[in-house]
């Protein structure tokens, strides 16, 4: 195991986050605060509570997931796409580094950043609403699992993308809609019949539901199913990454 290489890549990735602190930390904090003002206050004045939880507190897990998903994807996809774009990836490919080490370093870096971000949003949220975390262990477990899974997903997008447009395409056209329709701002039980069923095909529903359960002990779907779906998604991403590396797909061809 070339741990020095893993550490070198990881450090560069973290340094990049600190260099772009405005973009990677401050802007999500500002947008989260805006969500609180708009959704928490404006809508919260109409919907006072869901499942016995005040509306402001109810949306916290969803808001964290929203940033966690989008930031994990954009961090990881950019981290591997950029060297591909400028050509400096030659060095990574010519170095005595295994695929596993490359993934650990890049995905680890991206996931670390989004976990830190998630915790910052959690801290920001605690300024607006009283927070209560029923299952702290599971809260962290969902946080880490989701960050890792979506960083892997972002890594795949970064390798697949041939242009900046493609890099933005998947997050913009698929992930953002799925997150907004994933029950961040409402319980799926509030949806009319057919939409409730359709929503169950949205993987993000399971992430948010499980994560919310870790806070309040209440969930849209059972926690075991949430955990299972997260693991299935993780396994799928791992399988795709393994295939990419075995074939050299868009890296060594």
């Amino acid at each position: 195991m070339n741990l020095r290489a893993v550490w070198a890549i990881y450090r560069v990735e973290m340094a990049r986050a600190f260099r772009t602190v405005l973009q990677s930390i401050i802007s999500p904090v500002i947008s989260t605060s805006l969500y609180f003002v708009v959704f928490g206050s404006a809508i919260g004045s109409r919907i006072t509570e869901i499942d016995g939880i005040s509306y402001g507190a109810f949306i916290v897990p969803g808001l964290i997931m929203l940033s966690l998903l989008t930031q994990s994807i954009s961090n990881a996809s950019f981290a591997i796409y950029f060297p591909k774009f400028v050509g400096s990836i030659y060095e990574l490919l010519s170095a005595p580094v295994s695929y596993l080490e490359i993934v650990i370093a890049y995905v680890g870096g991206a996931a670390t950043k989004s976990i830190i971000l998630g915790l910052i949003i959690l801290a920001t949220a605690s300024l607006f609403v009283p927070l209560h975390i029923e299952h702290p262990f599971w809260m962290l477990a969902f946080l880490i699992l989701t960050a890792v899974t979506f960083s892997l997903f972002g890594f795949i997008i970064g390798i697949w993308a041939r242009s900046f447009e493609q890099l933005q395409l998947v997050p913009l056209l698929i992930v953002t809609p799925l997150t907004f329709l994933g029950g961040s701002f409402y319980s799926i039980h509030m949806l009319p019949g057919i939409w409730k069923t359709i929503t169950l095909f949205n993987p993000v529903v399971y992430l948010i539901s499980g994560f919310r359960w870790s806070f309040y002990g209440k969930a849209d779907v059972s926690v075991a199913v949430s955990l299972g779906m997260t693991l299935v998604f993780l396994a799928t991403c791992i399988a795709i990454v393994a295939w990419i590396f075995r074939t050299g797909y868009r890296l060594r061809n």
Partner: protein
Amino acid sequence: MPSILSISGVSKTYATGFKALKEVNLDIQRGEIFALLGPNGAGKTTLISIICGIVNRSSGTVTVDGHDINRDYRAARSLIGLVPQELTIDAFETVWATVNYSRGLFGKPANPAFVEKVLRDLSLWDKKDAKAITLSGGMKRRLMIAKALSHEPRILFLDEPTAGVDVELRQDMWAMVRRLREDGVTIILTTHYIEEAEEMADRVGVINRGEIILVEEKAELMRKLGRKQIRIELRAPLASIPDELARYALELSGDGTELTYTYDNQSDRPGVASLIRDLEASGIQFRDLDTKNSSLEEIFVNLLRQEP
């Protein structure tokens, strides 16, 4: 002496169907400077990319100091430093950070003293805290070299190292290459500037359309394929070349004041001394003469011209 790099039967066909390399066989001796020459698109960069692990080959084997580049890629790649043709650097990192990153990437423990020496040797020490984006083209090239040397490679690939580089850097670079060679580093370079290969290389390989068409000691190549030319400036113009000089196949310039005699080292054409005697015998007087050895460039161009 065993070769440090052994390439056998390597082919590469890109997804587009383009055959970049066809059954390439090549052995590089330990400690030599090897120049790989070839026109654009001949397969030089593809070959280097395969050896360094950047591009997958379609078939064949490559071993670096006995290590197969696939089975034993860690050992093989640790030995290699690569300076690619394009200036591709993470623009927002400082010189110091990016060179240390390269060293870490190759699994070497941090060694600030060594990295400092590399930067000083390349006149980059003053710029160590500058971001790569602020460097001039020449400085970026130096930085690419520093990155490649940061992990103390035993084989250094320089892909078109002097393309677009000023005279000072070029001289610095060749001085560095000589120092590295004294330390036992094997150097493989590709270049368009054939005079550089002529000056630096121990051996020369010529690649064209994905095939190695020649590998030879430079001195031997120059001797075997080099030609000599003598230009003779005449006192009085000649209307035509006298018959008794026909065996020399002389060329007469348009105004009749200059004769050119071309002969190569292999041919059995008579030497200069007999030509001068025969000129005198024919009553042709000359004012001056000068001789010229053909350069590697001319040899190279001739080689490519002979290709079907």
